[in-house]
């Protein structure tokens, strides 16, 4: 069987001592930084990117994946213990997790999150392994018009999922695509929007933009006077869920895993959509919906499993089609290009040890996180008691060093500083940054495929609609738009995305 043969390749790569060590360091550093309030997976990965430059491509990607899961996991810890979601996918965890913590059951909530995440991670790893090959084969059937439509679908879904009005999300996507035009036009060699600045000839780098918005601007916002952060300081004991807890969380974990595995594959989907959907589902199915919001264990178990499964399967579109389905995956594209790997269906055939090694190390990373986190949870919580006035200069130092080391130049540092002002303006206007970043990353590929498809159709734009596969993808995008503008669903979404 191919499936087992591939997993075997993966295991032999992932279990090499050096790769195990890097997976471990990744998980550890990811958790360490992810636990800090205001730092989600994106900022964490961007900050730690320079550490991976010197490694082999395998080790670098394995470590980055570890950082990703670690940061996400750390975000859940913060959500439960301090009621602060590290990133949007742990927003729902704060609802019941923090209530559990207030009732002295923080340990149980953390253990539930760990068990759920590990189970979900295991299933999702198998799903990635099983689905990767057929999907990569489908990718070979894709021409320019299909790729164009698929990316449009991804961008529409990303805007639907962003906070605020849908139309503003789309505006941010277009804005991101306009920014992606800066640089050299590959077809004609013309410098566009570069204004004679040589550093702009290669375009705007994703990392300074992400750092400016998610690192620096976030710090400015956190420094504004607002309500005190309420820290649950009592000692965390009693990690072990009771038999009753187990009885209630297991079905939620199964459902969350299934939901996350499926939703994660969707372009634009991933962890956020999965955790919201799972919370809604658990509340609907529960015999005691009134306990939700007051410390229901299902409200932690379901979403935590779902977001972990979704985070993992969101690698599928990247690895098989070369399309990043969310902002973190977009950063992974950046990391892969640094190591001269072009994401897409050819990775699997050209670089099987890298591909399968990465997949298996996802599972290993999940295992390490359980071992790393449950006994050390007290340590992570202690980290939260460092005053913010010491913490944020440290974050700024790491961000600045990270940005500098992309090209060993100060231009990117200035860029990040300017994007800090830009990001702060976006926050004040409630404009979502995630669609902007995706637009920036996907922009060049969209233009390229659009132009190629139009050449092939001799300038006839209707081919996007008349070809079955491309038309189908656009139809799904249109349905998503129609659904989101329906009043009933709109209010539901606003309720769900409210922070």
């Amino acid at each position: 069987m191919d499936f087992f043969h591939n997993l075997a390749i993966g295991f032999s790569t992932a279990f090499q001592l050096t790769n195990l060590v890097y997976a471990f360091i990744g998980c550890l550093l990811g958790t360490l930084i992810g636990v800090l309030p205001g730092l989600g997976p994106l900022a964490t990965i961007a900050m730690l990117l320079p550490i991976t430059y010197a490694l082999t491509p395998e080790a670098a990607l394995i470590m980055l994946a570890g950082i990703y899961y670690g940061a996400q996991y750390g975000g859940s810890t913060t959500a439960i213990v301090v009621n602060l979601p590290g990133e949007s996918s742990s927003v729902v965890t704060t609802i019941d997790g923090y209530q559990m913590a207030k009732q002295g059951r923080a340990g149980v909530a953390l253990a539930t999150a760990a068990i759920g995440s590990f189970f979900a991670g295991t299933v999702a790893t198998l799903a990635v392994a099983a689905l990767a090959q057929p999907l990569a084969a489908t990718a070979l059937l894709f021409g320019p018009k299909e790729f164009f439509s698929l990316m449009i679908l991804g961008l529409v879904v990303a805007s639907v999922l962003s906070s605020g009005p849908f139309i503003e999300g789309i505006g941010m996507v277009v804005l991101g695509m306009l920014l992606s035009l800066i640089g050299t036009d590959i077809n004609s060699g013309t410098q566009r929007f570069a204004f004679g600045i040589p550093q702009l000839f290669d375009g705007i780098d994703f990392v300074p933009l992400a750092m400016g918005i998610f690192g620096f601007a976030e710090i400015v916002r956190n420094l504004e006077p607002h309500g005190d952060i309420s820290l649950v300081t009592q000692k965390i004991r009693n990690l072990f869920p009771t038999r009753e807890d187990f009885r209630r969380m297991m079905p939620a974990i199964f459902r969350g895993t299934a939901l996350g595995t499926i939703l994660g594959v969707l372009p634009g989907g991933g962890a956020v959509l999965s955790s919201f959907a799972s919370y809604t589902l658990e509340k609907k199915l529960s015999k005691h919906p009134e306990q939700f919001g007051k410390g229901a264990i299902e409200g932690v178990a379901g979403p935590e499993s779902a977001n972990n499964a979704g985070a993992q399967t969101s690698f599928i579109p990247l690895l098989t089609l070369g399309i990043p389905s969310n902002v973190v995956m977009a950063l992974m594209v950046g990391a892969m290009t640094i190591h001269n790997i072009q994401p897409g269906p050819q990775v699997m055939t050209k670089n099987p040890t890298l591909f399968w090694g990465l997949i298996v190390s996802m599972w290993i990373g999940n295992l390490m996180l359980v071992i790393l986190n449950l006994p050390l949870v007290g340590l992570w919580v202690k980290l939260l008691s460092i005053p913010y006035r010491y913490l944020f200069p440290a974050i700024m130092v790491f961000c600045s060093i990270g940005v500098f080391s992309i090209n060993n130049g100060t231009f990117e540092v200035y860029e990040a500083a300017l994007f800090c002002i830009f990001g702060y303006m976006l926050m004040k206007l409630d404009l979502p940054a995630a669609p902007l970043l995706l637009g920036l990353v996907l922009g060049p590929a969209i233009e390229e495929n659009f132009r190629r498809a139009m050449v092939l159709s001799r300038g006839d734009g209707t081919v996007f609609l008349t070809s079955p596969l491309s038309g189908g993808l656009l139809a799904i995008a249109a349905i998503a738009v129609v659904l989101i503008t329906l009043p009933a669903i709109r209010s539901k979404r606003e309720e769900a995305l409210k922070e």
Partner: protein
Amino acid sequence: MKNVTSRLTIRDRRAFVSGAFFLTVAVFFYAVALGYAPGTAARMGPGYFPRLLSIALAAIGLFVMAGAMRPSAELQRLRAWDLKGLLWVTGSVMLFAFLLYPLGFVISLFVLIMVSSKASPDFTWKGALANAAVLIVLCVGVFVYGLGLKFPVWPTLFN
């Protein structure tokens, strides 16, 4: 009369400014894109796609602005900026970039940490200096000696 005026008021200032921002960016990009050859739909030049995107963004901007003036739009003001915090944070990063080559990693890090610390309402000299000492030792150890990143550690003036 009252009806007419209320229809033309900007009820949602946040959305209105967002829309105006989209429109401004769109106009700017469109104007610059006029300098690039558009080509035809079948053979697009470098200017075709930028024009398309600018027009789309302008339309979105106008739509958002119009939405902000609907009688049913939510009443919203613009939110105040914390200019001081923004200045300390952005300024310290720019200073770091500016000082790195002439003065080296250690001194520019020191400036970055001290200046950014000023952004905090709880700033104390003692705390900031201690923080700087710890962070500089850590960063030089990890990034310069540990990872071998190419930083000029000390001022280039003395070399």
